[in-house]
């Protein structure tokens, strides 16, 4: 039986294992370069986590999560870029003190919307606020009009395309297709050093675990059950007196917020941001991380992201010309053979045995919910 307590015992164990993995095991067992890669992958896990909430639980498939990852990342990158573009660093430019790409594009003064990013506190607020606000606008417009299912998915895809074209097309203001590169310091602290990378890795992992806890909190609240209910029978929820649109907007914004944090951490750890995270391809890939992990499994999102990225990196290192075959095959295999992803595998193979061992039935099984198919 399930309680409304914040986390059940087995969930605590699960979170503890993940925490041990990313906070202890990985930092101890892989070298700095690989750890930095893991850190980068974990920033995608924020997006996957958001998708678990919004797609797995809420039944809202967004193919545009890159929008929010990107906006969060760009907000952070704008701050870092401004810091890197001090008058001193940019004295060879015709207008010193503005980012280099602006100078290349004959812009002679910092555009107004860059101004807030001179302040770190303001930037931290905007990293979350801008994407969430954007998600709110999209969500409000779509969900109150009852756009859902595949339609929503395709529309988010279109919005991702729009944003990409805008960023690429307005390169004087955004850095265009190159993105915002060569980020160096955060309030004077060099983020490119190996020490900084270690610290950022742990900050990132800590934030991710924080988001995991938030996700669990939401899942176990009544709101979590309403989400499941909504995915099943939207009309029934509506006729139980709930504003369905409101709940959808909330979970969409939540997912956007998570993604934005991921994006910001990405910019910090990798040292640049580019439109190639905003578009359709990365957005779909992130959905795939979620599917591989198990769309209903909060922790699965993390494992799925790590697995796919690990596969991608090692396939592409070993077979630079053929790795797409392996990756494509992996996606197909997951969808066809393990529709509930890693979490499904765990539930059908590992857990029963664990159950036998401990003689107790754990309650993570509600992750084994049959697929809601939220499409029309």
């Amino acid at each position, binding site marked *: 039986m399930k309680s409304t307590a914040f986390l059940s015992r087995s969930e605590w164990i699960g979170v503890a294992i993940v925490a041990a993995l990313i906070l202890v095991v990985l930092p101890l067992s892989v070298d700095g370069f690989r750890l930095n890669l893991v850190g980068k992958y974990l920033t995608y896990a924020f997006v996957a986590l958001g998708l678990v909430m919004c797609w797995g639980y809420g039944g809202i498939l967004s193919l545009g999560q890159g929008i929010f990852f990107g906006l969060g990342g760009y907000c952070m990158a704008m701050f870092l870029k401004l810091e890197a573009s001090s008058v001193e660093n940019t004295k060879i430019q015709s207008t010193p003190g503005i980012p280099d790409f602006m100078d290349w594009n004959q812009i002679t003064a910092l555009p107004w919307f860059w101004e807030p990013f001179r302040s770190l506190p303001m930037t931290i607020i905007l990293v979350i606020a801008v994407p969430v606000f954007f998600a709110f606008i999209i969500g409000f417009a779509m969900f109150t009009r009852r756009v859902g299912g595949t339609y929503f998915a395709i529309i988010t895809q*279109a919005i991702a395309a729009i944003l990409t074209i805008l960023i690429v097309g307005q390169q004087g203001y955004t850095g265009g297709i190159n993105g915002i590169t060569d980020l160096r310091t955060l309030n004077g602290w060099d983020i490119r050093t190996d020490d900084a990378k270690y610290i950022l890795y742990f900050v990132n992992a800590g934030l991710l675990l924080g988001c995991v806890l938030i996700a669990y909190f939401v899942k176990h609240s009544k709101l979590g059950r309403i989400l499941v209910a909504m995915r099943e029978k939207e009309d029934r929820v509506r006729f139980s007196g709930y504003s369905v649109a409101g709940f959808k907007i909330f979970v969409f914004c939540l997912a956007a917020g998570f993604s934005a944090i991921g994006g910001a951490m990405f910019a910090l750890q990798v040292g640049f941001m580019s439109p190639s995270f905003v578009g359709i391809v990365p957005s779909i890939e992130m959905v795939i991380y979620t599917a591989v992990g198990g769309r209903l499994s909060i922790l699965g999102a993390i494992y799925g992201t790590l697995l796919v990225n690990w596969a991608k990196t090692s396939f592409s290192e070993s077979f630079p010309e053929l790795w797409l075959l392996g990756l494509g095959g992996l*996606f197909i295999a997951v969808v066809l053979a393990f529709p509930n992803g890693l979490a499904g595998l765990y539930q059908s193979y590992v857990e029963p045995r664990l159950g036998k061992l401990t003689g107790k039935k754990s309650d993570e099984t509600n992750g084994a919910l049959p697929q809601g198919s939220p499409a029309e």
Partner: protein
Amino acid sequence: MFSDYSLAELGSIFVMQGFAGLILFSVFVLMALGLAIIFGQMGVINMAHGEFMILGAYVTYFTSQFFLNYLPSLFGGYFFVAMGLAFLASGALGMFIEWAMIRHLYKRPLDTLLATWGLSLILQQLYRSFFGPREVGVELPEWMMGSIALTDSVEVQINGLFVMGLTTVITIVVALLMYRSRWGKQVRAVVQNRIMAGAVGINTEKVDRYTFALGCGIAGVAGSAFTMIGSTGPTSGQLYIVDTFLVVVFGGAASLLGTIASAFTISQAQSTMEFFLSGSMAKVLTLLGVVGILMLRPQGLFTLKVRR
């Protein structure tokens, strides 16, 4: 923006842009028809649609090579052969994919998106491995490459006319198939309720397989036609996928007429705006317009209203 041009110029601008819009319209319809069947009718979100188109384009390329090398005298007509072969090749691949993959996913429509995304990666890589990473140049018969001058400043392009004609023919055939034939009825029944369709005597597996194959085959023909105006490379298919889905969705997924209306609206909007704005802005505004209208009419331009 208008002040740059004289009145006479504006006149020919509109004629020429209208014609350019019509070509774009045909292109959109051609791209979208296959998907209108696969996605609109069957509900399969086929992210590999572009790769099926490119298969058609490659087939066209190889046919042209074959004719150049072995039947140069018949080169002028090779394109028709190529289109037929493109249809068969993409259709056959579609049939195989339906059997291997899609049929297991009818109960999980959103999962088709993920699986076909994987498929598109695989196809791209296969094309790259077998046909090389570079784009191939498809040589066209000379008669297709010219244009007919109507007035001094207004010319119509023969391949544009050809695409328009082709689109018209294919659209009519598809419309007849879907709305006038017994087959179309069976397709729609199967899509609505696979189990019940079987229980009224429809061989659902066959219907599914051939419908999917038909959609893919049309994609192949579209790809074949696109060699006249676009590039043929392993990743060229990716360029079309968002536009194609938007056209189908904007039209109202289940409606063929909607697909056509939406292709018309989008193409005219885009080609007119492209003339006065930059290419990027025209695209952004068109997409924004589409998204905006979809908010107002969430089920697209043409919808079947059925009570829930």
